[in-house]
């Protein structure tokens, strides 16, 4: 048994990583729905979910239970194989894309091995291309769901979304070419390291500044690719009931839902990696006092959670919330006491903070912007985003060429 474990150690570690990441992603997904409802509610001067658990924190759990126990009818006349395949495909592809994202530069030293954060191997030289390949297949989940439901609104939603995704995929791919030219690699780790050449510049060393056009195109195209407001034409409820997933109920609907939120997380990670320095700190490297920032955030937040939990009379409020608060405070104190651990946590801390900011922007846009009309959407993609991203590629290559010619004299 022991020898079997050591000979297949890589395999065992990878499977463990997949299980852990899957657990984290699904939990984050559940609480992203809570986050979205809360933020949109506050944008609209409402309270949002607040009945199930303190601050509505148990709402995702209740929703999940509801998905499990609801009746799951299959409409008459559906193409059964494709009807069942579509949600599986959507969910599987969305979850696979997370596997490519690296979460930190330094390995964890456990059991005498270096365990890197992220599932994909370090030398995955087609990193970004592999992500685009998975996104390219993601269209089928939506298109096939719309077609197989044997109903007119899902069909229209499916058609709209496939047209939209094909159109915006082009702009999405073109807009990152500038970043790839600067980094000279498809590997996501190399792309982040290429932004760390001037550690003293901090935030000004990121790809965001030379590639501001590319970032604009990328983020817009990415929002369209994930079918979110203001580009959520495939599920425009005032026109198409619920679009491609109208005929799906219960857990099959939940699978589409999880797929959508997972692709939101992937796109936010990608934005952080390509344009916002990934796990790099926004401060100059010599400002070592900024390393205490995680503790400065964690300790007051933990204390606040303890105080807040004690106000409640329920079990969840009285016991679990103070428990979580104690853990957070202890973690913050441990980071101050153990500098080694603190240094390790810096990169994932910044990476996750950036991802959180992008997720907030997603929700913020949903609370603010109205939906595009369909012809406006197509014109915007083909007549603005695509030309701008091509101009960005040409400009970037000229600047790089000029630097190569006259830069190093």
């Amino acid at each position, binding site marked *: 048994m022991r020898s079997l474990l050591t000979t297949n150690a890589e395999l065992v570690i990878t499977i463990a990583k997949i299980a852990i990441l899957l657990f984290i992603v699904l939990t984050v997904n559940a609480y992203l729905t809570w986050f979205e409802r809360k933020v949109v509610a506050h944008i609209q001067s409402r309270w949002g979910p607040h009945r199930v658990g303190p601050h509505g924190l148990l709402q995702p759990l209740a929703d999940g239970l509801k998905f499990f126990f609801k009746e799951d009818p299959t409409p008459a006349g559906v193409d059964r194989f*494709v009807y069942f395949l579509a949600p599986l495909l959507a969910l599987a592809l969305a979850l696979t894309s997370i596997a490519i994202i690296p979460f930190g530069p330094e390995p964890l030293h456990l059991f005498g091995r270096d365990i890197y954060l992220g599932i994909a191997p370090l030398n995955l030289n087609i990193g970004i*291309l592999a992500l685009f390949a998975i996104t*390219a297949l993601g269209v089928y989940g939506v298109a*096939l769901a719309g*077609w197989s439901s044997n109903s007119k609104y899902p*069909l229209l939603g499916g058609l709209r979304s*496939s*047209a939209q995704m094909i159109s915006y*995929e082009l702009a999405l791919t073109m807009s990152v070419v500038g970043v790839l030219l600067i980094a000279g690699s498809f590997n996501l780790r190399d792309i982040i390291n290429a932004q760390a050449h001037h550690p003293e510049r901090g935030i000004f060393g990121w790809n965001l500044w030379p590639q501001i056009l590319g970032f604009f195109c990328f983020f817009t195209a990415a929002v369209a690719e994930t079918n979110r407001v203001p580009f959520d034409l495939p599920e425009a409820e005032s026109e198409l009931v619920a679009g491609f997933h109208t005929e799906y109920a219960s857990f099959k609907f939940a699978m589409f839902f999880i797929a959508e939120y997972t692709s939101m997380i992937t796109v936010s990670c990608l934005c952080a990696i390509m344009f916002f320095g990934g796990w790099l700190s926004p401060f100059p490297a010599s400002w070592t006092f900024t390393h205490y920032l995680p503790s400065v955030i964690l300790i007051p937040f933990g204390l606040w959670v303890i105080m807040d939990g004690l106000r409640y009379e329920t079990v969840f409020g009285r016991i679990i919330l103070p428990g979580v608060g104690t853990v957070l405070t202890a973690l913050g104190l441990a980071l101050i006491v153990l500098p080694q651990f603190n240094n390790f946590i810096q990169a994932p801390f910044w990476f996750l903070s950036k991802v959180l900011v992008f997720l907030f922007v997603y929700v913020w846009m949903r609370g603010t912007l109205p939906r595009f009309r369909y012809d406006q959407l197509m014109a915007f993609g083909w007549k603005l985003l695509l030309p701008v991203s091509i101009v960005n590629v040409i400009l970037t290559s000229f600047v790089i060429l000029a630097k190569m010619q006259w830069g190093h004299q």
Partner: protein
Amino acid sequence: MTAPLIVFFVLAALAVIGAISLILQKHPIHSALSLIVVMVALAGLYLLMGAEFVAAVQIIVYGGAIMVLFVFVIMLLNAGVEEHTSLSKLAGPPGLLLVVALAAFVAATIAKSGASVQTAAQTGALSSTKGISEMVFKDFVYPFELTSFLILVAILGAVVLAQREKS
């Protein structure tokens, strides 16, 4: 049996089954789905040979863009079950004959070359993205530009056809 060989047989079987199912399926969407399985299995085989870039492009271009267009058109035209005309029924026997001839030719070529079949990752220019880009943009730059010109002509033709329909 080594691990790459097992993966090879799985992917190869998937590709062959997908190709057969492509022909036997009655509904156009099911045929298109089978073709996607073939494309993805082929991409897996490229990956197995160490041609990462070719594998990714195979999925992006063939599995993604082109097959999405196929599925899109089938959905848009709402194509029903395949119809058999007298001519399409006639195509069976000659087709079978051609399949046997092609298989024999490929088998004979492999047998004659005498080299053992490789399933492990290959090294060299084709395996790296840099090598491919150097071949396309340095050694074969004129054929490459000519091909892109051909595609441009095809796009112009499509635009002209679409415009004529409108007026």
